């Protein structure tokens, strides 16, 4: 069994059963736009949303997260010693995640799960999560997933892929986690797989054909780092940047963080918060020296990281899934597609 049919009339009922086992997350519209939220009892994910304003990365990697607790009260035996906090890593599922946002977890995983060190917070949350993807039928004009190693029907990192087919969803099973999820929902109706696969293939092609935006990345690996670093276009590229963190915070593949101690009276916690390479303080030394002290440095860092350093370090392509959020939300319209083109063609020029 590879594909299961979910009749939409059974949707609500299945979700109800699931909510007894999983914490469910899905796109919810609040005011003018959608975001992923934990679904309340009986609340349905809005699968008509184009994509959410913010990426679902915060479900696995919250913007603020407590790492340790401690007491500063010297009358306590364990004062000044950090203690692990008890976290809820019970099963959770993200329903309606787009293939691009799911693939992003694969890119981020390379950072948090390394041979030398494993980030326990990210990994435990990741392992507790079932990703139920929703194939993208109407990609946005600023989506460029197909040339960013992804696509509207891309299956990487997903446990299930839902395909909307009128009165029903087809659920393509990708992992065992996905199988367990379907079973818990009571969605088990089999289909004539041959016919379904044929239709899915056609729909996939149609969706991919709708992607009108592309990037070229073929030359990024071969060009010398310093060649690209010293390229003349960075002044022009970075001019309009206001050094806010929007691009990095809305990005599903940005992972940088800061660690802070917060005290309240004699107790406190060590927590981590998202941070951004766009902020000057990100790299400022205690002495005042800052290796990336101009916005040119910082803008260059962001693009070099995504499109060159990452490419070189892991050899799995660019650190971008083409979701287009940074393109749509940058307050001054700095467009990664344009910068990628500049970088890639600079490589051609210096061949």
């Amino acid at each position, binding site marked *: 069994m590879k594909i299961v049919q979910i009749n939409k009339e059974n949707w609500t009922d299945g979700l109800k059963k699931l909510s007894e086992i999983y914490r469910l997350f899905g796109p919810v519209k609040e005011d003018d736009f959608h975001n992923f939220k934990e679904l309340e009892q009986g609340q349905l994910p809005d699968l008509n949303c184009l994509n959410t304003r913010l990426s679902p990365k915060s479900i696995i990697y919250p913007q*603020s997260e407590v790492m340790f607790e401690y007491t500063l009260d010297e009358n306590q035996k364990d004062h000044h010693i950090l203690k692990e906090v008890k976290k809820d890593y019970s099963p959770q599922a993200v329903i309606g995640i787009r293939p691009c946002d799911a693939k992003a977890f694969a890119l981020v995983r390379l950072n948090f799960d390394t041979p030398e060190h494993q980030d326990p917070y990210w990994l435990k949350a990741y392992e507790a999560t079932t990703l139920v993807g929703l194939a993208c039928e109407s990609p946005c004009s600023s989506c460029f997933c197909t040339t960013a190693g992804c696509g509207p029907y891309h299956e990487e990192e997903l446990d299930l892929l839902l395909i909307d087919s009128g009165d029903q969803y087809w659920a393509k099973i990708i992992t065992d986690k996905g199988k367990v999820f379907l079973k818990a929902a009571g969605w088990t109706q089999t289909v004539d797989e041959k016919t379904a696969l044929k239709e899915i293939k056609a729909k996939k092609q149609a969706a991919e054909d709708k992607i009108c935006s592309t990037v070229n990345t073929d030359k990024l690996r071969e060009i010398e780092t310093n060649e690209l670093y010293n390229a003349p276009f960075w002044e022009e590229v970075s001019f309009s940047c206001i050094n806010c963190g929007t691009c990095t915070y809305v990005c599903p593949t940005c992972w940088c963080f800061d660690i*802070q101690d917060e005290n309240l009276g004699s107790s406190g916690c060590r927590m981590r918060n998202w941070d951004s390479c766009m902020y000057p303080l990100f790299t400022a030394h205690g002495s005042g020296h800052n290796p990336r002290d101009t916005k040119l440095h910082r803008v260059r860092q962001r693009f070099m990281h995504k499109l060159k350093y990452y490419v070189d370090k892991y050899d799995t392509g660019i650190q971008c899934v083409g979701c287009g959020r940074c393109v749509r939300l940058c307050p001054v319209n700095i467009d990664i597609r344009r910068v990628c083109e500049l970088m890639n063609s600079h490589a051609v020029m210096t061949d």
Partner: protein
Amino acid sequence: MLSYIDKIKEISIRLLKECRVEMVIGFRKGTVPMMNEPHFAKSPEDVENFVWDSNCGINLCNYFTNRGEKIGILAKGCDSRNIVTHIIENKIKRDQLVIIGVPCKGMIDKRKISAMFEGEIGEVIENENNITVKGDGFEKNLNKKDVLQQNCAICIHRNPVIHDELVGELVEEQIDVDRYEDVREIEALPPQEKATYFEKLLEPCIRCYACRNACPLCYCPTCFTDESRPQWVGKGQDPTDVSTFHFLRAYHCAGRCTDCGACERSCPVGINMRVFTKKLEKDCLELFEWEAGLDPDVRPPLDTYRPGDPDEFIK
């Protein structure tokens, strides 16, 4: 307003050719609908990329801060008042700038327009008074007046208050505008409801600081939010820290904000943080008869003392 572009290019080329400036700061066409990108021209050839339409809402004063060269800068009414504020605060010298004044009829509200349509907007075509919004399966004409940014709809200084060049005829100023309807509504709320209102307003904030960084007046080398010694504000998503950031930022703009709307326009999650700066603007007007950025030779209320300053709050 669309016709300004020829004049903008002509002036920019002239200024660059005559070496009166080393760069002109303007806009180039954006890559997504209803967006333009701040851009500079250092040679007459670069000027070719300049555009002007109703998507030039970013305040360009942000881009001359801490630059040393002589700069030509495009300035709408609100931007020109911002320049005046910078001059008053010794942040820039008047003679470092050649101000290219742009009489403005308002910028269109990207957020509002996007929210009017279910699907994605593919293209927005603009003429003098209308825009045509096109998308997958829809096309609609809208009167620009109905879809202006809120700060533009209630603007009473559309013409530059200070300029060396002008790109077109001055436009008629709006009169009888009620600038503070929304502020009064909030003022009337009892304290607890007010607190709840602000909490709800700021709930979506992701602390990306786009509002702060889009604001030309937020030029502090290290913002109080980023200070570590002492650390005034926590760095996490605690609602108290988030609102402390927004409240204090607004206070820092008291008597300085020219309501250019760049903060609101920049916010990726659609927070109307202008209610804070507008409240302070209203107070400055009512208590000190002060409107920011109108005259480089008048000191602002927060650095002058007059015997008649209101002091009823002191018991």
